[in-house]
């Protein structure tokens, strides 16, 4: 009898937690893609342009331009396939670790035209990654 009440309690907690998890996932999920995946997906499904995504890639060396105000433009390439490149605009201050060969994670979506409007820019802590042996040779 008493155990039943506890089972009910257990089921209740489990149900509430799962419900909150489900709605939480639904409301905050973000696709996490590589530039190549994103470009391919948009080609197959143009409506996907308006879906907010996270994209990880590498800033193309020499492409970083600082416009007046805290505004930045740069190009990002796919890590595995450097041929896939798109332009990014970002209207805020970039993180300290940002430079023009940083590995970045962008959150945002494509605006009109072929420019990706980033809402946030995160850099992957480059120096936490161990330098390859060859990097020391120079």
């Amino acid at each position, binding site marked *: 009898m008493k155990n039943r009440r506890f089972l009910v309690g257990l089921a209740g907690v489990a149900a509430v*937690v799962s419900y909150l998890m489900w709605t*939480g996932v639904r409301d905050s999920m973000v696709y996490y893609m590589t530039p190549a995946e994103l470009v391919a997906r948009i080609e197959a499904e143009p409506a996907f342009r308006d879906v907010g995504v996270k994209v990880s890639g590498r800033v193309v060396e020499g492409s970083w331009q600082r416009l007046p105000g805290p505004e930045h433009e740069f190009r990002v390439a796919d890590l595995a396939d450097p041929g896939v490149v798109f332009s990014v605009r970002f209207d805020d*201050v970039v993180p300290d670790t940002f430079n023009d060969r940083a590995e970045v994670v962008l959150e945002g979506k494509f605006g009109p035209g072929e420019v990706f409007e980033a809402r946030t820019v995160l850099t992957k802590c480059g*120096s936490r990654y161990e330098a390859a042996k060859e990097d020391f040779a120079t």
Partner: protein
Amino acid sequence: MTTLGEVALWIALPIALWGTVLSFAGGRTGRTDLVLSGERAAYALTFLLALASAGIVAAFLGERYEFWYVASYSNRELDTYFKVAGLWAGQRGSLVFWTLLLSGFASIAVFRNRRRNREFMPYVSGTLLAILSFLLVVLLFAEVNPFERLGFTPANGRGLNPQLQNYWMTIHPPTLYLGFTAFAVPFAFAVSALLTGRLDSRWIAVTRRWILLSWFFLTNGIIFGMRWAYEELGWGGYWFWDPVENASLLPWLTATAFVHSIQIQENRGMLKVWNMCLVVATFLLTIFATFLTRSGLIESVHSFAENLKIAYIFLGFLGAVAGICAVLIIYRLPLLKGESAIQSFVSRESAFLFNNLLFVGIAFAVVWGTLYPLITEGFFGQKINVGPPYYNRVNVPAGLILLALMGVGPVIAWRRASKRNLRKNFALPVAAGIAVAGALLALGVRHWAALSTFAISAFVLTVIVAEFWKGTRARARISGEGRWKSLLNLVGRNRRRWGGYVVHAGVVLVFTGLAGAAFDVAVTQELAPGESVAVRSAFGHEYSLTYESLSHSRPRASAANRENDWRWTALVTVRRGGERLAVMRPERRFYPVMDQSSTEVGIHSTAFEDVYVIPRDVDLESGAERVVFEVKVLPLVPWIWYGGMIVAAGALVSLWPAGVGSGRTAAGGRVPGAAAGQAA
């Protein structure tokens, strides 16, 4: 020194394996010489790993850049302090450090139990040595040997990531590792209890202080990490729901559940299977945390590296441990039957049970969120992330219920509580909660989560204060002692209970501090020297910040120059209502060796809020010395740190060894069987 350290690491593995085999064999056959040899192996390992760690530190101090690890995490210009901390700055070194701490705890456990709890010890040392063997295998064969050479000697190292050059970052990882590794001891005792079939409450009584010690370090480690993020990451927050942060939170959640549920087992002989599952789960999560930070499998801002080999090894180990423990628990199910049942729905044990469900529920939600990218990638071929809103959705309500339970638990009795007594005991605290809620509503606070937090906090604090007051009064009446003496004796007699209440009070403070984030204020403005920006805080204080000047220290470039960084320091005066409060020196730094810049924020703390100044951008080209400042006023953030200190103090009260005469049972330090064993 460094070579000796390298050799020591290679000697350590066979010693660990030898000790594992002999300990288990000795336990099985009862041959005490084998057991002693196994225990000697634990001591020897501590010595060898200390040598290996010393070797790494020596290489850092000696600027031996022929070592890959040293060259990757330091340079000649780095402060000595950070060179020593280089031991745990990167993946390779921190694995050695982790192993050193584990072997140290193993040695302490073996030494403290050299004459007592002998029925458990062979298997305890065997289990600990098995874990150590695994870590040594990883170190030596998973391409993470810290003594690996580059094959040539670069002129200088690459330096330490600027964000890690912070005081909190030097003590945060060791504290966390201490918490992770200390938990291996209760786990080893649990395995030993399962293996020997001694499944009464003895193993819990023996390891209770270890559990609390581990909890103490985990809690501090997490708070230090928040402190680091707050001071160094420069965005005014302290928690990001980043996979690595989650990884450190997970074992804390299950360990906290465990700290509570063992009390039900001790008091009522129930939940034995559940406790076994919790201790195993917590241990697995400590390993999982190590693995997660070391594998980079999930996208995280501070994952160490994408080393898939190490990921497979860790996953294999996790799977093996989980499998073995599951088999053991199922095999021992007949001995793990509860001795009694819950007598009433309204009782402290049912409150504890509910608390456990919530902690495990939160842990599950956090695991799910952390692994969601992997799960979706596995099933749908597409990584999908979930962000902070997901975690808040689940954890804010659950956290609020847990907060409220902290007020309910102490007031309702074990076994059964009558409604009339509940009414009597809850009247005042509930009134306090309602009063706070009403006052805040009247002041115009409409943020429901923050409002609930403050109201429930008032309720819980009232309960705790009343509890101390009633206990002291009851004791004073019985013993005839004065108020203060009664209070001291009251706490001394049952340190766990009263220390626990102190911890709860600290947690309440932390919660209110977290809720303060609902009232953050931020302003971003570009200023020229002499200009000011005004901010009005949630408490209604008018702050005015004046950017006075910019100074620049740019050391001359020369061979003898040992400067690590170049600095642009802004001088900012903070005034409140015209009164000058402080002068802040937020900085932008540039690390030439790493080609990286960093921000040092300016923080001015008052009792109720922090003024947090971030120099976002310094205009160096025009010579006008204009700086973009982001100014935040963050209410109640200092309370998180005060609360953390109170939590630590309470945990220390709970785990401090009871003095002679006050009765060791009060803190439960020892098992009477040991005395029997000695006498026999």
